[in-house]
């Protein structure tokens, strides 16, 4: 089973997780920019984070043969904080980088006017930089949030085939299925979506445009739930090829639209000396 996790926040995870993921078949991933738990207080805090997404994290991942890509954006929650909004003016610098394969996470948290504006501006940047878009749907008032997202996408004129709407569930997937957008599901312990519930949705809605992610972050989450979903698919009667479509070929097709996916496996990009003294290389020889 080869796995491409299309949504995982590795900055919040340990190097041990990279090792376990590689051992379980995860060979590539996309890390979208998000909220850190602790609110940021200025735009500089974002640029340090984005630098890490295009620098330190790909390096950490490469130690285990995992190809790391990212999406950058001002996330919906912090779009409400006037101290953070300046980051919109430095986003273009990052959207031009290698391995930045999408704009994201954008979308709604509380569905405020500020969120509307940041969403619209960043959809415009996606068109300008010819990048796909990863859209977060809100935890609260998810159905309205999903409907409003679809309205905004329609207004923006963006090609729906270049948009993934994420964190869907039994109630919201039906709203997105006919829109032409890709459908993302975050498999979480207990809450958003479970492996067995996911297999039911795959049976009902088919495998096309369906992406499964772990969305693992600093909360209760598990980077191996993509693997568990593949296993649950096999148990439910799906074929190995079906699993490969959902867990590898679909994300490759979606993010491949950026023209920036790089899936040649290189064991380590930097000489060990580059991180001398750092525990990341301990035991790696």
């Amino acid at each position, binding site marked *: 089973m080869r796995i491409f996790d299309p949504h995982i926040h590795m900055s919040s995870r340990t190097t041990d997780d990279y090792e376990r993921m590689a051992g379980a078949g995860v060979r590539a991933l996309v890390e979208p920019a998000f909220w850190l*738990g602790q*609110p940021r*207080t200025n735009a500089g805090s974002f640029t340090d984070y984005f630098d890490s997404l295009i620098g330190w994290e790909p390096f950490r991942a490469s130690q285990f043969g995992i190809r790391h890509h990212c999406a950058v954006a001002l996330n919906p*929650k*912090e779009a*409400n*904080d*006037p101290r953070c909004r300046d980051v919109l003016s430095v986003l273009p610098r990052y959207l031009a980088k290698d391995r930045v394969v999408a704009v994201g996470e954008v979308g709604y*948290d*509380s*569905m*405020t006017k500020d969120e509307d504006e940041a969403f619209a501006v960043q959809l415009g940047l996606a068109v300008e930089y010819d990048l796909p878009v990863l859209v977060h749907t809100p*935890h*609260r*008032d*998810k*159905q*309205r949030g*999903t*409907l409003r997202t679809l309205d905004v996408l329609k207004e923006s004129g963006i090609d729906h085939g270049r948009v993934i709407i994420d964190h869907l*569930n*039994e*109630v*919201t997937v*039906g*709203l997105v299925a006919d829109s032409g957008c890709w459908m993302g599901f975050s498999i979480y312990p207990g809450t958003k*979506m479970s492996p067995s*519930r996911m297999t039911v949705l795959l049976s009902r809605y088919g495998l096309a445009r369906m992406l499964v992610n772990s969305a693992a972050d600093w909360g209760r989450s598990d980077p191996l739930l993509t693997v568990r979903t593949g296993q649950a698919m096999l148990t439910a009667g799906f074929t190995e090829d079906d699993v490969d479509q959902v867990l590898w070929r679909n994300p490759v097709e979606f993010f491949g639209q950026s023209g920036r996916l790089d899936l040649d496996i290189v064991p380590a990009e930097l000489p060990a000396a580059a991180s001398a003294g750092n525990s990341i290389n301990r035991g790696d020889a």
Partner: protein
Amino acid sequence: MSAPHLAEMLKEQVTDPAWLEDAVARLARDPGAVAELFPAVGRRCGRGPLRGDAPELAAWTVDDAARVLLLTAMPLRGAALAEQIRTLYWHGDAAEKRAVLRALPIVDIGDDAVELLHDAIRTNDPRLVRAAVGTDARQLDEQMWRQAVLKCVFMDIPLTAVAALDRRADGELGRMLADLDAERRAAGRAIPADARALLTLIGGSTKPTRSAEHEEAS
């Protein structure tokens, strides 16, 4: 709740009453000392639950009350007071931020309270979300207030913590709770009992959402 009332309650409950008395006197002369005194309150006064019967002080701690008392002791008004309060909030740790939120009903900083309440509601820290919804947050508009109530449901904060819930809960909040209930049921889960009781009380939307129609059609 008033400053003399808080001072009276705290006399018997703080670990170092002399320190608190000195701190209040010092702030009356030198409000700038608050930067040093405000963070020290937990260490000097204690952090246990505040004893007392006043319903508006439910879930308060001793350090909450002592910090609120310090804020009332500063001889500042208007823009100068608001600026000092905002600075304490933005540089505060979670306990300091919570005390600022608790103080909002008696320390008037006008519309500047809105950004502090919004920040607190954006956090995923139950100490701050709970304090923000517990202040009869009149400055919050209806849309943000409903989001805050729903956030309490997500964070397992009991809805009894929400000030003026009976007065402000409206049909739109009912609609949001009904949608959440539908999502949870589709996932084989349930909303908490207090949210269920509130939904029963205020009722959900009678107009089905598009998603509900879809579920029925398939």
